[in-house]
């Protein structure tokens, strides 16, 4: 019996089973699409907020002090981040020790007057011993503010001394007004202190791209639940008869893997067609989706993208083959695929980005093939980085190892 005849029979079987498998996969697509969409919305609704409670001890409560404090409280850069609480020194120290305050500001008596007459009384800021992120940010803020004040003071004194030396005391108020104008226009420009940059827990990918990639991986993994007829082991009697006829177990295994691979490929093709058709029906939604998913940063060549897709599908197909060989039954295989897919996608940061997972979980997830599958799919949207070769090699290794495991398990089953 020829190898070709067996391959032909397997392909024919796959073609017959394909419509039913595609229907099952479509139901799965709706499910995983819903999960991915919900997760993405959840991420958007809950931004990470950082705020600091700052205690203020006012030793001399007069109108000038209140005005100065009100000015600082309402500065845009401070108001967005700090909440000032008036406390006594004793209560403030206790709250600082209890971790309720990020910092305690001690305002001296005659603060404003001292600034105006040049005595410059110092303002003490007390930080907790084990400063948290909020305290560190506030320290940066106060140091930056103090630096600005020092520069402004040097400018004022310099201008006064220069005016006195050249007999221009009458022009001093004009010069001070000009210095104030320059300070306000340039030195106090907040943007020079705080540069705005959006950082995603999802790495190079945006939230939408990340969940599109992990949703696609979850979908591909779960699609194996419908593929038992083509990827599950053949009846033992058939396998033995085939081996008797010269069609060895390795060829049988490779043929079934190829059928699984082609099934996943056709699934991707159908999904692409459906999306394209939906795009034609709703062009505005399609444009918005394109805007969300394609950042315009993807400069990877078509060949690299195609190669990564094929490698990802190969790895997923061999994963399904191995699971069905381990389980030995349809129901067991379906359950195992569901459980392993959900757990490994979670560990690899498919539901909650890895950066937000506990360190041990993150370390374990990094080793799983699903982490590389997510990177391979994400790269289609945002381009491939330096890890492309590593990702490709890892997916290739996974394909070989899973398929070898499936072959060995089936062969051992035949011997028993």
């Amino acid at each position: 019996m020829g190898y070709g005849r067996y391959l032909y029979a397997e392909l024919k079987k796959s073609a017959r089973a394909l419509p039913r498998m595609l229907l099952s996969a479509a139901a799965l697509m709706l499910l995983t699409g819903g999960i991915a969409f919900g997760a993405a919305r959840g991420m958007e609704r809950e931004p990470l907020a950082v705020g600091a409670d700052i205690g203020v001890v006012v030793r001399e409560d007069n109108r000038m002090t209140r005005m100065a404090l009100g000015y600082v409280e309402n500065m845009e850069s401070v108001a967005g981040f700090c909440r000032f609480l008036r406390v006594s020194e004793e209560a403030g120290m206790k709250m600082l020790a209890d971790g309720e305050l990020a910092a305690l500001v001690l305002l001296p008596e005659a603060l404003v007057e001292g600034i105006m007459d040049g005595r410059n009384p110092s303002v003490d800021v007390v930080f907790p011993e084990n400063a948290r992120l909020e305290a560190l940010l506030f320290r940066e803020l106060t140091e930056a503010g103090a630096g600005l004040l020092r520069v402004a003071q040097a400018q004022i004194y310099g201008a006064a001394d220069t005016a006195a030396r050249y007999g221009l005391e009458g022009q001093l108020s004009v010069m001070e007004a000009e210095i104030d104008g320059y300070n306000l226009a340039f030195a106090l420009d907040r943007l020079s202190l705080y540069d705005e940059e959006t950082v995603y827990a999802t790495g190079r990918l945006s939230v939408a791209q990340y969940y599109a990639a992990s949703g696609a991986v979850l979908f591909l993994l779960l699609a194996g639940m419908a593929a038992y007829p083509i990827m599950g082991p053949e009846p033992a009697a058939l396998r033995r008869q085939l081996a008797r006829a010269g069609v060895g177990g390795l060829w049988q295994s490779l043929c079934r893997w190829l059928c699984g691979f082609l099934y996943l490929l056709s699934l991707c093709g159908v999904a692409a067609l459906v999306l394209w058709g939906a795009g034609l029906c709703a062009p505005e939604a399609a444009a918005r989706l394109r805007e969300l998913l394609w950042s315009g940063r993807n400069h990877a060549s078509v060949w690299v993208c195609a190669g990564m897709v094929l490698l990802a599908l190969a790895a997923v197909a061999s994963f399904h083959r191995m699971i069905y060989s381990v389980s030995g039954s349809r129901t067991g295989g379906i359950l195992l695929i569901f459980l392993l897919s959900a757990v490994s996608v979670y560990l690899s940061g498919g539901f909650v980005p890895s950066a937000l997972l506990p360190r041990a979980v993150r370390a374990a997830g990094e080793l799983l093939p699903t982490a590389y599958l997510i990177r391979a799919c994400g790269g289609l949207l945002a381009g491939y980085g330096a890890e492309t070769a590593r990702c490709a090699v890892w997916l290739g290794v996974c394909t070989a190892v899973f398929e070898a495991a499936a072959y060995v398990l089936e062969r051992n089953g035949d011997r028993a």
Partner: protein
Amino acid sequence: MIAAENIVSSYGRRKILRGASFTASRGECVGIVGANGCGKSTLLSILAGTLKPQGGTVVYGGRTVWRRAGRMRCDRETIRRMTGYVPQEDPLIPELTVYDNLRLWYPDRRALDAELAQGSLKLLGVGAFCRMRADKLSGGMKKRVSIGIAVAGDPPILLLDEPGAALDLACKEDIRGYLRAYLERKGTVVIATHEESELELCGRIYVMKDGVLRQADRGLRSGELVKLF
């Protein structure tokens, strides 16, 4: 035609065959009976080349197919050419039609169509349901197809492992009829069975007990045979 000598086989530490020997000549049907789990299927698997024995020799038509030469050596090509094997479970791909299943084992479409029109498959009555999917077939239909697969290539030896199990009387009679015709064409049949009706075809009956084969009187009825198990 068949000479099996001192076949030894074990699963782990459990010895199944402890030196089973028998012979069968051309046109003869040999029956092997014994209690469940005594090693009948193991012996047939070794004869069919799907299981490796730990010792012994098997000769088909003067050619040694299993022999010990340091380790057990097998002439798979001769086994493949000379034997057809009908295992207990049916070697069918459930999602394909009977025709597609048979197509897997016959060299080309023309040979298969000829067999369906006037050969073994016609005798087995497979043509009547060859467009049905294999998973829709009854047990009897599946067994007929299994025999049809085994005799693809017209082998001179047919090995059957409990072919009549769970089949209705009409189906058993059809299969017996086919086996009679096969024997008339000077084929050799080795049949492992519990069915008294199948033993009627046998020129010799061997009882397997404690891993060895003992020839029994052909005239014994099933009740008397059971006492020998």
